[in-house]
């Protein structure tokens, strides 16, 4: 027999946000003109940009664009390793 639905079991997070991040809580990060256009490039860019106080690696976006995906993934793994970020144990939330 199918269990009757009760309101209490619905999703608790229907809507959040829609209010801008207050300027005082926005980090002032130097904006680059030459932004990555793919996910792997974005991931590497963010890791380096957001952790500039912990790790420094200079490269041009054109250098990154020339890499194949396997090389990009290895670079990201190396950056994460340097930052002490451990891999997730599973892919399902």
């Amino acid at each position: 027999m199918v269990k009757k639905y009760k309101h209490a079991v619905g999703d608790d997070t229907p809507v959040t946000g829609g209010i801008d991040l207050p300027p005082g809580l926005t980090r002032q990060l130097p904006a680059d003109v030459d932004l990555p256009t793919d996910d792997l490039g974005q991931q590497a860019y963010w890791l380096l940009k957001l952790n500039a106080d912990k790790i420094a690696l200079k490269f041009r976006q054109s250098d990154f664009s020339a890499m194949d995906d396997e090389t990009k993934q290895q670079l990201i793994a190396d950056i994460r390793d340097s930052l002490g970020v451990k891999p997730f144990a599973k892919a399902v939330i």
Partner: protein
Amino acid sequence: MFIDLPKLIELTHCSSGATEQATIESLDREMAKVKIDGNWWRPLTDATSKLMDEPDSEWRWRDLISRAQNKPFFLARCAKSSNGEIQAAVLLRVDAKSALMEGEGAVFIDRLATAPWNRPNLTKNPVFRGAGTGLITYAIALSYSLRLDGRVNLTAVANQSFYLRLGFQSIRYDQYGDAILEISAEQANAHLVERGLIDG
């Protein structure tokens, strides 16, 4: 997609308790236009209140994505079920400051919404639960993976008590009047351990 971030969210069918996995996907303008703006707000057969009273009924995800896509620190993701429907969507930015820990960064949930047919305040028979919460966990995982230590902040428009139960703290941000909710690095770590995403 980013490497080594969760790719699936386990959804629960509210009617049967059965589970299925939704994929976490990039949300682009076309998908937002067709699958959210053009699909979410169709009348529900068993609606218990007005769709147009929902705080996000006037959000136009296509426009939001258009504005965000050329900014360097925004990310749009959605949870898509096996029938191709978007069950929840989120717009994140990774250039936030922590409101709890001075000098540290955080991921900010600019906005998040679950599909109307999953909302218990709108329908007597919601379809899925877990999509919105799954995307919050995704935001925490993203923060963790970017070495922001899992810190995530947001402004809740409703159901603040849910976030407090999840481990978020309410911080009065007096200059602007809105309360910011933030999950600390310690609570974020506990959240990820509890869900088996990282070791304790």
